[in-house]
């Protein structure tokens, strides 16, 4: 000790400073550990993180306008959209030059369908203009020729859209996902009859919570029973829990259709027992009820399994001890058993909630119009309307919503309090 206070450094046997030697040894250790996990890390980065980041990036990416019409974008930036007048000849000449190249590379129609998301009619405007461009007089004047090809070129609104979406990055998709748009006086909400996404987000969250709660309500007693029964019986019951888990999702969903529809098994039975009359058959499918019932059934194993594995570890001697100290059945359960099963509830609830928030096949089949989720709209924009930018921004919002809920959950329950077994 006295050595160091004298300003002398501790050294190893071969004269190197001890601190540095230690650090190097540690670094080597860390490097080795890192190299061991590197293959997995690279695999996850390449196959999981990178595609997601790429998809999320599409929600702001908008290079297509500047790539397809480079000269027009430069000339158009000088134009004042509030002037109420169509841009002058210079812009039209630039448009002509860009369009000739674009038509040659066949990229003009792609730009048309991109801008059509913002304003109806631009798709055919570009298609039509592309067909006419070869017949135009290349010495100009171009303004009249373009307006002659399609009068939408003489419309200020067309140019406003073109200018607004000229930058390489756009917030347009996100505004759209928030049911908003950029009007002449800044950001404004869309008209009431076009607002849908925020409403669907709300419904998705609400229905997911209801589904999680009903899974918990149904799953808890089953898991309790499974954990309490002797192994032979509980194994048999376990197979019954897992059996639907192994059945195709579509088969299970269709089975619910057969059961729940108005001329279905349940309604037929109720009419037969005279509980309801033929005119008063219950509507249990193609609405929220259908979605809740079918999804609760499908997600139930995801609640039961973590609950069961946690309950299995709770020693029966605690409850016995509580009872021998004078607690009745309820107190022993509520004060001793239940708190120990909370980590299982946490794990099951998080699992079911996150799965249900992104579900779309079951809601699509049994949800009718009042039971569909935001994921149904995302699927529509991916596979049908091809508006991948909007789909990506809706997906980003969904991801952020889940992460926020996860943080809230961590604050309230604590993430350490989640156990899968």
């Amino acid at each position, binding site marked *: 000790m006295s050595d160091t206070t004298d300003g002398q450094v501790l050294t190893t046997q071969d004269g190197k400073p001890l601190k540095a030697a230690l650090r190097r040894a540690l670094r080597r250790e860390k490097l080795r550990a890192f190299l061991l996990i590197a293959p997995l890390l690279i695999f996850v980065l390449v196959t999981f993180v990178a595609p997601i980041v790429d998809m999320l990036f599409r929600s702001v990416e908008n290079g297509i306008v500047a790539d397809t019409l480079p000269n027009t974008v430069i000339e158009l930036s000088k134009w004042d959209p509030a002037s109420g007048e169509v841009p002058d000849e210079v812009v039209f000449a630039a448009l002509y030059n860009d369009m000739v190249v674009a038509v040659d590379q066949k990229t003009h129609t*792609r730009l048309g369908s991109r801008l*059509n998301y913002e304003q*109806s009619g631009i798709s055919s405007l570009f298609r039509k203009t592309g067909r006419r461009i070869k017949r135009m007089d290349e010495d100009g004047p171009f303004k009249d020729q373009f307006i002659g090809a399609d009068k939408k070129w003489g419309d200020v609104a067309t140019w406003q859209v073109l200018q607004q979406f000229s930058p390489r990055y756009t917030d347009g998709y996100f505004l759209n996902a928030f049911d908003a748009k950029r009007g002449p006086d800044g950001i404004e909400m869309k008209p009431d009859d076009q607002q849908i996404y925020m*409403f669907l987000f709300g419904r998705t969250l609400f229905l997911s919570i209801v589904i999680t709660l009903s899974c918990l309500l149904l799953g808890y007693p089953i898991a309790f029973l499974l954990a309490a029964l002797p192994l032979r019986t509980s194994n048999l019951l376990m197979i019954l829990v897992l059996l639907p888990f192994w059945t195709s999702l579509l088969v299970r969903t269709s089975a619910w259709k057969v059961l729940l*529809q108005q001329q279905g098994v349940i309604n037929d039975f109720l009419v037969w027992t005279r509980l309801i009359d033929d005119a008063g058959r219950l509507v249990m499918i193609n609405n929220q009820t259908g979605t809740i019932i079918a999804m609760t059934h499908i997600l139930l194993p995801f609640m039961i399994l973590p609950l069961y594995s946690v309950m299995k570890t709770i020693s029966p001697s605690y409850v016995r001890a509580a009872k021998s100290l004078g607690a009745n059945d309820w107190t022993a359960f509520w004060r001793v058993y239940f708190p120990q099963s909370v980590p299982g509830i946490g794990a099951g609830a998080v699992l079911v909630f996150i799965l249900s928030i992104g579900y779309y096949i079951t809601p699509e089949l049994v949800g009718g*119009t009042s039971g569909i989720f935001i994921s149904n709209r995302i699927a529509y924009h991916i596979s049908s309307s091809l508006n991948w930018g909007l789909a990506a921004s809706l997906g980003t919002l969904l991801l952020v919503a889940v992460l926020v809920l996860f943080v809230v959950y961590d604050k309230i329950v604590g993430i350490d309090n989640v156990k899968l077994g």
Partner: protein
Amino acid sequence: MKLKTLILAGTALAFTGSSALATDLTLVSWGGAYQSSQKNAYTDPYTAENPGITVIWDESSAEAVAKLRAMNEAGNVTWDLVDVVASDAIRLCDEGLAMEIDADVDLAAAPDGTPASEDFGDLLVSECFIPQIVYSTTFGYRSDIDEWGGKEPTEICDVFDLETFPGKRSLEKRPINNMEWALLCDGVPKEEVYNVLETEEGQDQAFKKLDTIKDNVVWWSAGAETPQLLADKEVVIGSTYNGRLFALIEEQKQPVKMLWDAQVFDLDGWIIPTGLPEDRLAEVKKLVKYATDTQRLADQAKYISYGPARKSSAPLVGQHASLGIDMAPHMPTDPNNAKNTFLYNYEWWADYRDDIDAKFQAWLAQ
């Protein structure tokens, strides 16, 4: 040593042999009865004549546009020929994902020498589209409903008439066709429909008309749903593709009848993806030329009740392959069925689809 050489030589031979003789062509279609009609009418006879060709089917037509776009971005298009509806063909052409064709060069002329472009006529709705069949979206209704008191729907507006024909209806969960029918039944003349629908007021008018039956509608998204709903008596009238109703009525013998009034014609056909290597493209073009000639298109009608897209095929349509009934009266294009038809405007919907669909979904969710 000898054995080893022999095996090696054999393997080498097998490899060169397979690459020289056999070509795998991946065709994308819709699955089900439609795909098997294509298999029976086009590809089975073709592979029998060309033993080197193997056809692999992929049932992805419903997501073809999105998948093709993703494949194209990844730079790995694995499809050779894709069956899509006309509106998707237009989108794929716009996106540069489908190849433009020259009808008179790439497609066979009619037996009497009429060039293909004339034989297909107006049905060549896009430079990339090779039409196969004309199908229609139309209504079927149950013929055993007591509450109707012996009356049967005869025209499209009966779908909106809940007093005479009470009961649930099934309609497709998208604005296309529904908006047009609503306007037609709200007194808009046929030729004015798209002009009216272009305006905000026109769209509101259509939604208002749909509002009158909204509580009695089951919305479908897959073509198989309406036949099932009709068979289960869940709905009493429903729209779907005419071929599905044919199967329900003639093959499954359900008490259902066709309501052909204001049926909406649509087209289905092939597109060739862009960027195929030369040799594959040559094979694909050969297959397409064969599969869309007059006889092949007429043959397809033996297996499914969709009308051939060539004018010259119509007289050759015969009897159903297994039921033995005349197919001509079941074609949407038959004069008796086509007394009042509605023409779907592709260009118009390409422009207004995004906008109106957003409104339609918001209207549904309300």
